[in-house]
């Protein structure tokens, strides 16, 4: 028997030859991986496969087709089933979370629908087909638990679905099937079966009671993924120590972290099997789980990114975690401290009574804290079945069960605000929601870089900082030295990389902020922070007072003549004003030397950092310099244009 799986994706996910699926599409596809593995193990004579379009499905001539639909693409089911029926005289079965939430709305051309978790009903269906072939009909469907089916124009439900008796003995998903999906990225590992979040509600069929997978079973899944990755990447020369950066694994359910004992058991199993050296983890967390203890554990097992699903502050939807601005701010600081990137999704209207003031408060938070996120997306939640908006929507528009087949589900687009979207919110009208959506989108788009920060680059940068700090320490520091660091931006901190005890003063709003050191300092660092002061001279004078006789100061300033910043101005980009701790004052090396001299320092050493790939831009620089020399009669010192940073070490005169 050939069993074809046709996962439905939103039509716009396919653009010409490329495919950019949404998160739900990936979740949905991964679930099929589990079902195929189950069928292959339990019924080896069945050949199960995935096809992404009707055309390719027809070429494979399946004996039965399973259409797998999530809510956002349910609108395509009826026409797709009708077309399949026209060309294939085979049973068409429907499964997925949407049908599970609407147990009476089976499209006409679909023979049977699976309610709830699909494992056992699908297995029973396949076995029934093997026994009855094309004669499979309502008499057999009636005997399978967890099905709905049509007979003589009426809808019937079978007995209630059963649950898989022992979840941990279910076979491991076959991830190689998913490699046919272009753009396939981080494989998903579920650690439980619970519909406790919006994502799991929309992507997975409902389960009757929460069930957790055993840590050993979860780690075996991850091993399976690593093995698949190895097969996939076998043809490429990748250094072993870099290989794990090419193997991300996404863990979507909150149950991974919510139980401390289980998290520790998972950590222990992952470390025992050395999986943290084989792949990187991206973990979906509720903000409440972001604490020092959890992040230490997550960092130890190579968690490189955390994904958050958020609603406006003050919402009470049970499917999205709640948190306060203060808590989220602290959580972001903690993630930054552990060098774990944060990505997220904000749902503007997770409940019918979302208020404008809630959205405004949320916007103000993100305006101030957006730099703590590597990437954010904004969505308008559509009233899909299973969401908190669904009941209200249904009662307001007075939909009857028979109308459900005609609801244009594909016109609901939770990732883009569409003006035709029917709304059922009590406090937000269409115009307000549209303005809010576009404002958040603009804010996020301005912050989001085209690609996520690469974990390998992040780690290499940390390593470089550590090595540089170590070398610096060996050259200029003794173990007992008292060190002061003036910090303008957490990314530039040296404290984490030094063995010496380091005191810190911060630059806030152009001023030095924090208690003065109690004892004289032997070495002060100002890595870019001098430029973030409104009055650098006064700042330097202040720091000089903290130094012991013969104490030293190490200063890095960006080169004001660096071509990178000048070219931004020439391209009339100028600079935007919003980022915190931006450079306020540019300082020339001569001016810095004068300041050092004025406040009693002797220059010990001066050094430069030169930009990479100088040769690539040299022709442009020469053209520019020639033009200025020819028409402006000014001589441009070209070499200085390539200097990125200027570093000076100075000692206080006694």
């Amino acid at each position: 028997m050939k069993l074809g799986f046709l996962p439905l994706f939103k039509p716009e996910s396919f653009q010409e030859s490329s495919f950019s699926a949404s998160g739900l599409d990936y979740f949905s596809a991964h679930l099929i991986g589990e079902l195929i593995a189950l069928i292959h193990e339990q019924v080896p004579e069945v050949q199960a496969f995935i096809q992404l379009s009707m055309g390719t499905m027809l070429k494979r001539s399946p004996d039965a087709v399973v259409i797998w639909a999530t809510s956002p693409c349910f609108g395509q089911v009826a026409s797709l089933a009708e077309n399949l029926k026209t060309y294939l005289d085979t049973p068409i079965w429907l499964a997925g979370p949407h049908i599970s939430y609407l147990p009476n709305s089976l499209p006409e051309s679909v023979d049977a629908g699976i309610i709830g978790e699909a494992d056992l009903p699908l297995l029973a269906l396949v076995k029934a087909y093997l026994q009855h072939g094309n004669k499979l009909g309502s008499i057999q469907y009636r005997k399978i638990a967890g099905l709905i089916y049509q007979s003589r124009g009426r809808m019937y439900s079978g007995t209630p679905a059963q649950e898989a008796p022992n979840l941990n003995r279910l076979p491991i998903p076959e991830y190689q099937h998913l490699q046919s999906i272009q753009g396939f990225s981080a494989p998903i590992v579920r650690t439980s079966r619970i519909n406790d979040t919006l994502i799991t509600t929309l992507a997975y069929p409902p389960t009757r009671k929460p069930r957790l997978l055993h840590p050993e079973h979860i780690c075996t899944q991850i091993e399976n993924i690593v093995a698949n990755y190895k097969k996939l990447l076998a043809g490429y020369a990748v250094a072993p120590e870099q290989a794990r950066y090419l193997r991300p694994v996404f863990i979507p359910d909150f149950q991974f972290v919510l139980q401390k004992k289980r998290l520790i058991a998972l950590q222990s199993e992952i470390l025992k099997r050395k999986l943290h050296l084989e792949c990187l983890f991206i973990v979906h967390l509720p903000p409440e789980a972001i604490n020092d203890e959890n992040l230490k554990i997550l960092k130890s097992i190579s968690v490189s990114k955390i994904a958050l699903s958020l609603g406006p502050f003050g919402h009470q939807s049970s499917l999205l975690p709640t948190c306060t601005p203060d808590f989220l701010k602290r959580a972001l600081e903690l993630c930054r401290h552990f060098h774990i990137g944060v990505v997220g999704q904000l749902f503007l209207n997770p409940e019918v009574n979302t208020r404008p003031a809630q959205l405004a408060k949320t916007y103000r938070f993100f305006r101030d804290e957006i730099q703590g996120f590597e990437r954010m997306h904004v969505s308008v939640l559509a009233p899909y079945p299973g969401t908190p908006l669904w009941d209200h929507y249904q009662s307001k528009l007075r939909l009857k069960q028979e109308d459900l087949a005609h609801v244009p589900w594909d016109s609901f687009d939770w990732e883009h605000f569409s003006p035709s979207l029917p709304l059922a919110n009590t406090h937000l009208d269409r115009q307000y929601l549209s303005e809010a959506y576009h404002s958040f989108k603009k804010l996020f788009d301005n912050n989001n870089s085209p690609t996520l920060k690469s974990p390998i680059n992040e780690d290499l940068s940390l390593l470089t900082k550590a090595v540089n700090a170590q070398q610096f320490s060996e050259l200029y520091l003794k173990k007992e030295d008292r060190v002061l660091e003036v910090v303008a931006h957490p990314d530039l901190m040296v404290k984490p990389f030094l063995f010496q005890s380091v005191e810190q003063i911060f630059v806030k709003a152009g001023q030095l902020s924090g208690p003065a050191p109690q004892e004289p300092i032997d070495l002060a660092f100002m890595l870019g922070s001098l430029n973030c002061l409104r009055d650098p001279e006064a700042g330097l004078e202040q720091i000089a007072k903290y130094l012991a006789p013969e104490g030293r100061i190490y200063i890095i300033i960006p080169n004001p003549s660096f071509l990178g910043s000048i070219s931004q101005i020439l391209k009339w980009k100028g600079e935007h004003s919003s980022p915190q701790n931006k450079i306020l004052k540019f300082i020339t090396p001569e001016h810095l030397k004068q300041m050092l001299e004025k406040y009693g320092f002797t220059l010990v050493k001066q050094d430069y950092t030169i930009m990479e790939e100088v040769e690539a831009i040299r022709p442009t620089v020469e053209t520019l310099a020639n033009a200025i020399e020819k028409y402006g009669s000014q001589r441009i010192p070209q070499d200085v244009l390539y200097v990125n940073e200027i570093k000076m070490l100075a000692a206080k005169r006694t």
Partner: protein
Amino acid sequence: MYNQYRQQMAVKIKSMIKPEHRRILCVGDALPEIEASAKEHGLEFVYLENISPDWREISREHPHFDSDLPAKHFDLLLVYHALEQAIEPERLMLELRKAVQPEGQTFITAYNIGHISTIINLLTEGWTYQDDGALRHQHVRYFSNESLRHLMDMVGFEFIDEVVYQMVQTPVLTRQLSQMMKNPYLGILSFVMIGRKINTFPFIDFEDDAEKEPPPKRIPQKKSTEAQ
């Protein structure tokens, strides 16, 4: 050079003030001619420096002015070389915005960091501060046409028009570089951006800002399973 610029700019801004601008809030450098003229015509003219000289320091750490400004009161907000001196121009504008009437106007005057004289300064001497211009000693923020428009967008003022102050130096070089870099603003010394206060999200003024947050979520009590 800059004395002439200041005189001409004051005349220009004065000519842009319309009869409906009855209440004017001015922040930044002083505009004594405009202030005198406004008072002579019976207009209300408030110079922020006189009542709240802390305006330059408005930031996350210092979010409000020391003295309260009346809310939604002024018809015109004159921002005259103020943004360049502000630690956080965006936050300053959001605070000033509160004092402007719905649909009120703003004239934002700022130096162009991309003027040819500044570019030459950067390329030849680094970043040498001067007595006036984009690189004035007290400046801590530096704007281009694009960044000013972006700022207006971020603080809830709809861009209506711009007036430019042109000062061409080394015309052949300016023309050459303009073509090379596709930068039309190399000859522009400063901009006056004209904007109108808009009342869309997230800048909408909440009359009911004191609106209570929904009550905290109640955790349902577990029902007793014991038979009554």
